[in-house]
């Protein structure tokens, strides 16, 4: 991929700086660290559909396909040296074992020629069955630390997932709720990437004490663009 095209795909992204590292929040729900040649994706929740089906809730079995298709497209665009999947990559412990063959192949294809880290999440604490890549609890790279669950209190340089942040604004008496990246300039909480993943408002008490000044800036994900919204404009619920 040539340079011009790569610059183009970055349109609509927002760059923030964490511990001196540039982090490009991409509207497709991933973060790219150009200085580290690193792409981070969080909360893929692969095989969530079949996980529900096991309990008699027969939601469509197409979530893994949809999620991997979108992932492949950003991986192609950035062609990074390293990829971190920031936990809850599979919706449950047996998710990787249930992964249908074509999807396994496509995932392995994406991993080829680069370093791939599976950060352990609460849904998938163990290494995924029969898949390459290295499973870690957390990972420190270039002054940043990558872990699934955000640590309590302020944490400079931490990139985490787990909470599935979304934000809501009210403009002209209409309410708009979107997934978002949440950051106070010190730490970053990433949106969930999976096709069937829900979200939790950044003003929920689960985020209490995490951001300096209370509410974070929400980098809300729109169509083809990320919109940075100041914490003071955000609404709960």
């Amino acid at each position: 991929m040539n340079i011009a095209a790569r610059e183009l795909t970055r349109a609509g992204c927002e760059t923030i700086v964490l511990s001196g590292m540039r982090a490009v929040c991409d509207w497709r729900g991933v973060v790219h660290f150009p200085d580290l040649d690193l792409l981070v994706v969080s909360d893929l929740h692969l095989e969530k559909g079949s996980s529900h089906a096991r309990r008699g809730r027969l939601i469509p079995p197409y979530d893994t396909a949809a999620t991997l298709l979108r992932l492949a497209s950003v991986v192609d665009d950035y062609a990074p040296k390293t990829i971190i999947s920031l936990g809850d990559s599979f919706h449950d412990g047996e998710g990787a074992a249930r992964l249908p063959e074509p999807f396994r192949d496509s995932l392995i294809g994406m991993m080829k020629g680069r370093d791939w880290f599976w950060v352990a999440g609460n849904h998938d604490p163990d290494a995924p069955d029969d898949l390459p890549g290295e499973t870690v609890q957390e990972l420190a790279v270039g002054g940043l630390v990558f872990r699934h669950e955000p640590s309590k209190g302020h944490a400079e340089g931490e990139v985490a997932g787990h909470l599935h942040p979304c934000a809501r604004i009210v403009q002209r008496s209409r309410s708009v709720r979107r997934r978002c990246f949440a950051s106070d300039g010190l730490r970053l909480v990433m949106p969930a990437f999976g096709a069937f993943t829900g979200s939790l408002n950044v003003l929920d008490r689960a985020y209490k004490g995490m951001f300096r000044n209370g509410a974070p800036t929400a980098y809300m994900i729109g169509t083809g663009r990320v919109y940075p919204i100041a914490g003071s404009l955000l609404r709960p619920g």
Partner: protein
Amino acid sequence: MRWFAERGWSPRAHQLDLLATAQQGNSVLLIAPTGAGKTLAGFLPALTDLAMRPKKRPGEAQRGVHTLYISPLKALAVDIERNLGKPVAEIGLPITMETRTGDTPQHKRARQKLSPPEILLTTPEQLALLIASPDAERFFSDLRYIVLDELHSLVTSKRGHLLSLGLARLRKFVPGLQAIGLSATVAEPDELRRWLVRQGTSPSPLWRGSTHSVGVGAEVESSSLPPRPSGDPPHKGEGNASMAELITVSGGAKPEITILDSEERVPWSGHSARYAIPDVYEAIRKHRTTLLFVNTRSQAELLFQELWRVNDDNLPIALHHGSLDVGQRRKVEKAMADNVLRAVVATSTLDLGIDWGDVDLVVHVGAPKGASRLAQRIGRANHRMDEPSKAILVPANRFEVLECRAALEANYLGAQDTPPLLEGALDVLAQHVLGCACGAPFRADELFDEVRGAAPYAGLDRDTFDRVVDFVATGGYALRSYERYARIRLTKDGTWRVSNPRIAQQYRLNVGTIIESPMLNVRYTRAKGKSGAGSAQSLALRGGPVLGKIEEYFVETLSIGDMFIFAGKVLRFEGIRENECYVSTGGGGNVLVPSYAGGKFPLSTYLADQVRGMLADPARWKALPEQVSDWLRMQQMKSILPKREDLLIETFPRGERHYMVAYPFEGRLAHQTLGMLLTRRLERAGARPLGFVATDYSLAIWALGDLGQMFKAKKPSLAELFDEDMLGDDLEAWLADSWLLKRTFRNCAVISGLIEKRFPGQEKNGRQVTVSADLIYDVLRSHEPDHILLKATRADAASGLLDVRRLAEMLSRIHGRIVHKMLDQISPLAVPVMLEIGREPVNGEANDTLLLEAADLIEEAMGSA
């Protein structure tokens, strides 16, 4: 019967007719106005039969339920138990009668299963639950009668579909079961007569009649029906085999209806009818008890506020609507029955079927939207059918004056315009199939026959049925990866069985077809929340009494400190905690009125036609108030008035924009759909449309391009623009992304059992965990657009929120009858819809523009970084 006569009971003629018809073994439909003793008539065959039935001998096996009474409201069932139980006890009939509703305690339900009452009073949902229990066949084995009250209101919804399937199942248990339907006057009694009895195997006219081969309706083209076997006899139109007997009681004294003739100026647009408040108040003063009906809950709140503002005599005026706390509503109902109130402002929810005391005046604020609806509302007030009811219609704007006039004339003619019935929904069928399996194993062939016996499903084809069964089993996905998780399985003996007892438990929690939008309790607090856009501050709020429930989506747009009207009070919003909305007493400032979804009925086709007829005929304007007929004469001078069957399109410039206003009179929903489709077409034609707004009567579209010149040059011509082919690809393309379809899908997904019902409280915390219907919709649409549930969703939207059927009828009606009038400026007739611009939100998706605005605020404040 002598038995009753000896006890001093003198039945009315129709009651005896009904008894005689039932005693011949027939099912029967009784159509009668309120106050005719309908309910007693419905029970007469059962009471007679039970009175003559030999007493159960000791040692004889326990008998099952003899008569089932189904009401749309549990309150009504309770009322019947009280009202019927008393006379039955007084004349010494040893009949057991009990209710079974969602409120019935578990131990009582269990006891009812073991030792059923002779008469069971219940709701459609409870019937579905009973059918899904393993002992259903035994429980119903002695059933003789099923009495269906308020049938006209039940059959128009998915609840009616579920009930029709339940009725089919009961007929399978007890082939000789007789159904007795009780209904208000309807436009097509034959539809209800078919509904009550088992349908044959040929496609019913109902199914075919409601089929359109256009757009989303194409899903049910007749070609998709199975070819009829050659030896099949033609459909028997009047044969007793496919229709219940009919007994009609003509209306009592005709109501005296007038239209409020106010000295005040009738507004051009709007719905508040504020101008009429002094006149309405005067009317209340002059009568004993007045019932004031409005169309929506927001109108109810507003009218109540306005009346109290002028209530110098401190008359006891109360408020009653479905969102208020139940205790509060019961208090108002009791005060009304005790005749201590002078007036009640109410939405016409069904629970008004209950006794309202001595009402001597009904005021209907806003247009009634349908002639039958008006008759039913006025009828509700007066429970003595031989006295005329007195009613005043209060139009809120000028078009409503025409509409009220049309409704009034229709009322005297006895015209009926209840909507035609829809074919059975597939999501409801899916729920029923699972319910049947929870009760007992079924054979697909037999269940298919049984289901087609239900009128709404009489035209169902086998392929669709099989797909529904497949959906229930494994989700029905082309990717067959869920076989091992099947909810029901085909076993070796050829029957389908539930694969796991847990499935039956899940089913029981999710039964029913009523999906409410998420509501929050409105609770008083003394503490004040911090002003401004709420952040995650801890709300140290002390709870007080609950005022009622309010839609979550309204509360979500509030900031702490905002004032809004609810339960007749001005409240200050203090914050949300869990599923409660905290408020304190407010006052002053800019007060908001919550708007509620679903409260607005579209103008009926019949009334629309009447209004067009009135516009076209100046001789009829004499009946209108002078300011309204003046308005029409002005229109005649400055533009034209269309003929009854014509569609008038006006174009004119205004400011920097060019406007077109169309007057189809087909109701807001159909106009909205038309607006969406026309803007797409105008976009393609290079007219650069900017937006549109729709009312019940007309549609305005504005654009940068000169629309008038474009139509004149036939680029495009209006005939092309309004061609029926817009219901094909354009509709499909627009629908694909529409929020309307997402909302419809959500309901279908819950009813069909794909996702679970949400219960209060679990919502907030559950967001992270549950899979939202919107996400499922997106994934399903891109991976399997032909999935059965998407098919059900499109059919639903076409008949519901989009009103495609009506739009299709209109487009075919105006073929070659479009009249274009180019004007230099806005016409008198166009004023009402033009005033709505800016007032009504321009319809659209939750869009990025709003995000952009919010993001720009930061850039403005911070400068470019």
